[in-house]
């Protein structure tokens, strides 16, 4: 049966808060309702792109795979790591976990970080140095070739994160990865979902304020998929159009709402529930 199958990090699936069921609020669920097609979401918050590759290869070799599936792949931060020794793949962004919170949030992660964190940080900074990091180019090359060989499938690649400082040159090489009959890449850094998320704040200080609030008080961005509902709805509309009309011309970064959050008081006011 044809399905929407999603790979990526928290921009794809919002599973930070295990205590609260919020999957029905994600753009993935809304897209599934919009198109009346079931969805399988393999996204896991905090994960790196090699984890998504592992899950993708597992999926296309499973009984669940259908050759007419709609694959939506949200690329993640290029310095996130993935190893088979990790107790949880969200440790791909281990460096973002404040030490004091780890024990409370993920009880089996602190041991891995204590034993591996120093080396993992070295790998992140050195092996995944943005000026020699081709992770994004490599993975979208694979997806384009896979789409060419699986012509009944539809493959959409969304850029999750901005380019990293130092990675600007390599980022331009993505221009070689162009749209195909069933392959729809949205790869420019300016089109990243992180850009939409960031632009919801009227200035960068407010964004930093929210991150500080999330990290030390709440533990998680209250915006599901790091986007406010109005922008998730726009994302769903654009994805539905890309799928229906077979063209990335239906992507438009300027349609997304900016400056939703303009004061600290407003940010505080939404801190008690997901939005």
């Amino acid at each position, binding site marked *: 049966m044809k399905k929407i199958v999603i790979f990526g990090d928290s921009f794809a699936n919002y599973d930070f808060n295990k205590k609260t069921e919020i999957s029905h609020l994600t753009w993935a669920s809304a897209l599934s309702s919009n198109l009346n097609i079931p969805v399988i979401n393999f996204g896991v918050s905090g994960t790196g792109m090699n984890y998504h*590759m592992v899950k993708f290869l597992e999926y296309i070799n499973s009984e669940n795979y259908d050759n007419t599936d709609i694959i939506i792949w949200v690329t993640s931060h290029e310095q996130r790591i993935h190893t*088979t020794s990790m107790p949880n793949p969200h440790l791909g962004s281990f460096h973002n976990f404040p030490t004091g919170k780890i024990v409370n949030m993920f009880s089996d992660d602190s041991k891995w970080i204590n034993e591996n964190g120093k*080396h*993992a940080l*070295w*790998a992140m900074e*050195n092996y995944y140095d943005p000026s020699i990091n*081709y992770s994004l180019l*490599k993975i979208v090359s694979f997806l*384009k070739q896979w789409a060419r060989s699986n012509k009944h499938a539809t493959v959409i690649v969304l850029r999750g994160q901005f380019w990293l400082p130092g990675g600007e040159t390599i980022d331009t090489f993505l221009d070689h990865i162009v749209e195909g009959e069933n392959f729809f890449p949205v790869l420019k850094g300016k089109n990243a979902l992180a850009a939409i998320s960031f632009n919801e704040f009227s200035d960068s200080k407010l964004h930093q304020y929210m991150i500080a609030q999330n990290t030390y008080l709440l533990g998680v961005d209250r915006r599901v998929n790091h986007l406010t509902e109005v922008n998730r709805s726009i994302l769903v509309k654009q994805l539905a159009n890309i799928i229906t009309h077979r063209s990335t011309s239906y992507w438009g970064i300027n349609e997304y709402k900016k400056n939703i959050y303009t004061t600290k008081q407003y940010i505080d006011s939404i801190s008690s529930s997901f939005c």
Partner: protein
Amino acid sequence: MKKIILFGDSFANYSWFDKDEDTRTSWAIELASRLNLPLINYGLSGSSLIYSFHKFWEYFKSGQYDKDDIIIFIMTNPERTWVRSMPNAHLGVSNVDSTNSWHSAKDRNWLEQNQDSDVWTKINILNPEINFDILQIACCFSILAEQYKKNTWILLRMDNHSAREHIEYLNQIVFPSDNFFPYIDEKNTLMQASTNEFSTLELFRRILGVGLDRRINHLSKINRDKLTDMILDVITTKNIQNFNINKFAKNIYTTAEDMEIFNGPWSPI
């Protein structure tokens, strides 16, 4: 100007310890001579797949690139690392012995400071189970070959020790074309041609025990010539079938006497 451009490790450029004179008898020099084309060899002994890929992009976006160039990319062991702080890219080779006398003071200093984390990276991040570099880089070259049709693109594979579980995907999604010749299945590796020169693995391991392999590009002259012939055939006939591991000479070294050639003062074979 049309050129041959080569990327890879010691199978591409045998430049260990500044013994650049050894490269005069490399298969790449012979290929350039027979095609009467200039050669730029970006290969570096011991270097990693990502190092080669990075050098490719540096070249491809530079004034050196020509739309008629013949680009040959040897995909080495994907478990090798490369980071910018390495004084020499050959430090990314697997199982580096930091005490080895051939390391420079800079090399030893880097190893002292970084080797634990470098080894951790090799074992954990570049683990063949979750290492897709050969698959993904082959896909990237396939895409470029389609966009740059006047170039000739040849992919060769160094060994089959790593990432072998992903071969089935390579065969499913990376196909040859009129200008793209990927020899990346696990049975057509240059390392296999190299080890097949010995009648037993035990004999092959003996040369590893004495240090530097005296065979330029890890192939004896007869097989360097065969490699040159095969690549020449691929370029001139555009026939993917013209490269085959079975065309290399096997069992050149079968006895202890045959192995004498690897002893005594350094002399390239």
